[in-house]
C-alpha cells in the first residue's frame, strides 16, 4: 500500500502539492487526473524521491520512503515517463535490461527476463530486441518503456503520461495491454494523466487534482455519478453521462438466467457495448457468453437502462 501523509511541496512559498493525505490499495491502478500545473507530476515524483517533500511523507507498505536509500528505492519502483526516455545509444533489449544490470543480475538471467518481457508485450525478441530506439515505431517504443520499468519485477509502477505521444488507435491498444498486464502481474500502478477518459478507462480509483489538492478521490463510477465539485463535473463532462457510466460497468453482474437467439456478447463487455449491439441488431435481449464461449445467461435492455439511471446502484 502507498500512503501520503499530509504531503506538501512548496516552491517559493507556493504550495504545488498542498497537504494531500490519501492511500492507494496494493494491486490497483490509481489514475491521478488534472490540468497542467495541478501538481500531479510533482506528487508522482515524490514517491520515488526525485522530489523531496517540504513537509509530510510518503509511505510504501508502512515505511517512510525518506528513510530508504534513494538509489535502492528507485530501483525497486518501475518508472515510465512521457516520451519514455529510452537511451538512444542502446538497443531495445539493453534498455529493458538496465535495472537488472544495475542490480547485478547475471547476464543469462537478464537475457531471459528481457525476452520474457518482450513476449509479454507482444514483441518478437529476435526482431525488436536488437533495434535501436530510432528504429522503433511510437507504439513499440512505448512498450519498450513499459517493459524496462517492469524488468526488475517492481511491486509499484509509476507512469507519467505514458500514452501522451501515441495516436488514438494505438493509445487504446496500449491502454488495453496495460490493463491486461496489470491484471496478470498484480502491480500497484499510479498513473498521471490529463485525460479523464483514459483515467475512467484504466483507473480502479481516480484522484482529481487541482491546485495541489485532491478535489475528489473515488472509484470511476462515483466520479461520473456524483462529481464532488463543479470542476470534477466539468472534467467528466455533462454530455453522455449515462452512456459513460454504462461503459464503466461490465455485463457480468446484470445477468439473468435464460436464453436468447443471435450472437452472444462477452461477460467482460461493458453495458454500453451490449446496448449498442441491441440497437444495431434490433434485439431487446442478448445472450452472454464467457471467454470460452459457454453461455452464461442473458442481458435485458430494461436492466441496462436502469443501470444507467442517476440513482442506479453502483
Amino acid at each position: 500500500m502507498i500512503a501520503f501523509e499530509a504531503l506538501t511541496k512548496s516552491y517559493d512559498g507556493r504550495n504545488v502539492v498542498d497537504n494531500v493525505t490519501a492511500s492507494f490499495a496494493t494491486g490497483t491502478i490509481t489514475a491521478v487526473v488534472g490540468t497542467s500545473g495541478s501538481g500531479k507530476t510533482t506528487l508522482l515524483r515524490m514517491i520515488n524521491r526525485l522530489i523531496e517533500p517540504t513537509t509530510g511523507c510518503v509511505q510504501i507498505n508502512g515505511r517512510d520512503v525518506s528513510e530508504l536509500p534513494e538509489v535502492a528505492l528507485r530501483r525497486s519502483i518501475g518508472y515510465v515517463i512521457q516520451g519514455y526516455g529510452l537511451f538512444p545509444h542502446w538497443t531495445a533489449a539493453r534498455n529493458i535490461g538496465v535495472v537488472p544490470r544495475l542490480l547485478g543480475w547475471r547476464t543469462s538471467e537478464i537475457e531471459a527476463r528481457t525476452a520474457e518481457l518482450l513476449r509479454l508485450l507482444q514483441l518478437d525478441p529476435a526482431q525488436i530486441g536488437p533495434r535501436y530506439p530510432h528504429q522503433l515505431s511510437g507504439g513499440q517504443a512505448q512498450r519498450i518503456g513499459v517493459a524496462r520499468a517492469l524488468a526488475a519485477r517492481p511491486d509499484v509502477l509509476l507512469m507519467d503520461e505514458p500514452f501522451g505521444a501515441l495516436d488514438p488507435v494505438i493509445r487504446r491498444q496500449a491502454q488495453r495491454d496495460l490493463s491486461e498486464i496489470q491484471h496478470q502481474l498484480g502491480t500497484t500502478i499510479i498513473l498521471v494523466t490529463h485525460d479523464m477518459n483514459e483515467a475512467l478507462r484504466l483507473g480502479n480509483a481516480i484522484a482529481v487534482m487541482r491546485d495541489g489538492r485532491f478535489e475528489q478521490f473515488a472509484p470511476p463510477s462515483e466520479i461520473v455519478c456524483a462529481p464532488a465539485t463543479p470542476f470534477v463535473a466539468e472534467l467528466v463532462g455533462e454530455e453522455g453521462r449515462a452512456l459513460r457510466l454504462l461503459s464503466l460497468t461490465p455485463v457480468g453482474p446484470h445477468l439473468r438466467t435464460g436464453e436468447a437467439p443471435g450472437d452472444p456478447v462477452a461477460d467482460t463487455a461493458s453495458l454500453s457495448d451490449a446496448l449498442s449491439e441491441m440497437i444495431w441488431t434490433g434485439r431487446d435481449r442478448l445472450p452472454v457468453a464467457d471467454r470460452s464461449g459457454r453461455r452464461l445467461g442473458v442481458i435485458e435492455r430494461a436492466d441496462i437502462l436502469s443501470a444507467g439511471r442517476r440513482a442506479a446502484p453502483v
Partner: protein
Amino acid sequence: MAIATRITRIDRLTAVLAVPLLAALLLSVLSYRPNRIAPPEPRSLADVFDGGTVSAIIASAVLLTIVLLVQHRPAVRAAIVGLAVIIHVVLLGWGAQILMEGSAPAARVSPGTGFWLGFGALVLLLLDAIARLQPSIRARAALLVGTVAALAFVLRSGLLADLSLAAEYRGRSDAFHRATLDHLTLAFGSFLAALIIGLPAGVLIQRRRRLRDPVLNLLTLIQTIPSMALFGVLIVPLAWVAANIPGAASAGIRGIGMAPALIALFLYSLLPIVANTVAGIDAVPHNATEAATGMGMTGAEQLRMVELPLAMPVILAGGRIVLVQNIGLATVGALIGSGGFGTFIFQGIGQTATDLILLGVLPTVALAFLASAIMDLMIAMFRGQSQ
C-alpha cells in the same frame, strides 16, 4: 531540346576542373635547379619527355576529361581517377629521373606548378567520387588504411628518389626520424594530457554552473595568447623549476626544449576539450537523464552509461580540433628547441632552401590529415549507434 538535355547530363564538377586539369599540361611540370639554393628553371612537358610520350600524355588527359564529363557512375569514376592519380605520380618520378640523368649530383628537380595543379584537380575529383559512393564506416577505414599503405609503398619504392625532397631526406634520415618521434610526442602527449585533465574538468563545470563561466573565460583567455608569446613566457618559470627543484632537471624539465612546448600545447588543448565536454553533456536528451535518475542510476553510473557515451561525438569533435591544431602548432615549438618537423622548416628558412622547408611542412600536413580522418571515423562510429 536534345542539346539542352545533353548539357544538363554533363558532370558539373568535371566541367569546372577541366580548366586546371588541361591547363596543367601547358605549364611547367617540373622545375630544375643547378644546386639546392639556385633559382628554379621551369621545365615543360616537351622539355622533359620525347614527342611520342608528350602526345600520349596530352591524349590521355583529354580522353580522361571527356570520359569524366559524361560518366556518372561513382564507382567507375573513382576507379578511373584513382588510376590517373597513380599515373600522375609515376610520371613525376620518371620525369625527375630523366632530368637528373646527365646532371651534376648537386642539381635538384622538384614538382612544378603544372604538376601541383593537375594533382590537386585529380585529388578533388577522387574525393568527390568517393563521397558519392557513400562508403560505410568500414569501407572508409579500409580506404584510409589503403591510402596510407600506398603512400608508404611509393615512398619506399624509390619511385620518387630523384626528387629534391628525397635528396634532402637522404642527408637527414636520422634527424627526420627523431623529428617524427618528437612531433608525435608533442602533439599526442599534450592531447592525452588535455583529455586526462579536461574531461573531468568539463564534467565538473557542467554540473557546477557557477564555475562554468570563470573556467571557460580563463581557457579562452589562454587561447588568445599568441603561441610564440606563450612559449617565451614559459621559459622563465621552467628554468627556475629546473634550477631549484631537485630531480626536475634530470626529468627533462628545462626552460627550453620539450617541456615548455608540451605545456603550451596542453594549455591550448584545454578549451576545445572542456568546452565540447560541457556542450556534449548539455545536449544529452533531458528525458534520457530523467529516466536514468528515476530508474536508480547513481550519478557516476549515469555519467558512465548515459551522458558520456551520448556526448562522445561532440567531445571527439573537440579532440579532432585539438589534434589538428597541435600538429600544426608543434612546428613552432622548434623555435625553443622542442624538436619536431618545425626544425626543418626553420632551418630551411635560414638557408633559403625551399626543399628543406617542404621536408618539414609535408609530413606535418599529412599527419594532420591522417589524425583528422581517424577522428572523423571514430565520431561516425559513435554517432552510427544512436542515429
